[in-house]
């Protein structure tokens, strides 16, 4: 049975908490492979563009959605960090904005017969994700050659 010889003082406790924060930030900000940003941007744009399809819209939308999930989880497992959420709030906000553009494209497609608003939202979804990628890369830096993330 292990025991604690001496209760840490405030300075030691503060140092331990700072160490915890540093470790968590480091793992959450593991650099992602460069290819994932354009691939995700393209897939999100394609998801939004499926709103233009007259037939088989739902299966195609679902298939692309599952591809997005599969690509990201597979890349995460390759890097050894499949479920970490980056620390950058701006990145998360931009990804959510990209997702909102995809959903808006579906709603707009049902409300109008014009194709351009849906295409504009598809471009906006991809652009938002690309900007999110730039923000993410700026917070994490480049992937190191020794990690699986460079492939």
């Amino acid at each position, binding site marked *: 049975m*292990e025991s*604690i010889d001496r209760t840490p*003082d405030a300075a030691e*406790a503060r140092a331990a908490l700072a160490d*915890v924060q540093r*470790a*968590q930030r480091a*793992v959450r900000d593991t650099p992602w492979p460069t290819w994932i940003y354009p691939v995700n941007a393209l897939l999100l744009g394609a998801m939004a563009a499926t709103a233009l399809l007259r037939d088989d819209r739902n299966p195609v939308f679902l298939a692309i959605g599952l591809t997005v999930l599969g690509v990201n989880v597979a890349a995460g*497992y390759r890097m050894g960090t499949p479920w*970490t959420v980056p620390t950058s709030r701006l990145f998360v906000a931009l990804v959510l904005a990209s997702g909102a553009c995809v959903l808006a494209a579906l709603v707009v497609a049902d409300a109008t017969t014009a194709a351009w608003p849906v295409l504009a939202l598809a471009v906006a979804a991809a652009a938002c994700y690309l900007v999110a990628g730039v923000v993410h890369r700026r917070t994490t830096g480049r992937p190191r050659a020794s990690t699986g993330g460079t492939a």
Partner: protein
Amino acid sequence: MSAALDPVIHPAHRLRICALLAAGTTLELSVVKEHLDLSPSALSKQVAALVEAGYVGQSRHGGDSRRVWLSLTRRGQRAYRDHVAALQEIVAASAVDVPAEPR
């Protein structure tokens, strides 16, 4: 003090391992090693202590069975949360104890 320090998590390297797993949910052992300044045998020893206490689960899944994955168990999550809360209480108590400077 309502939260208690956990003697298993208390050593700095084990606390760091738990912090990494709390942030990452599931991490490959090599990622944990990357973030700790420990030799492979020392890391195995620290991880083994956490596994033995029932705080960390180890598994090998996916296509490559050489890769070892670590995650905090529910018990480990609770112990880690309590330990961090206890550290925060120590820091907070010291802030209260400091007498206000006379103006």
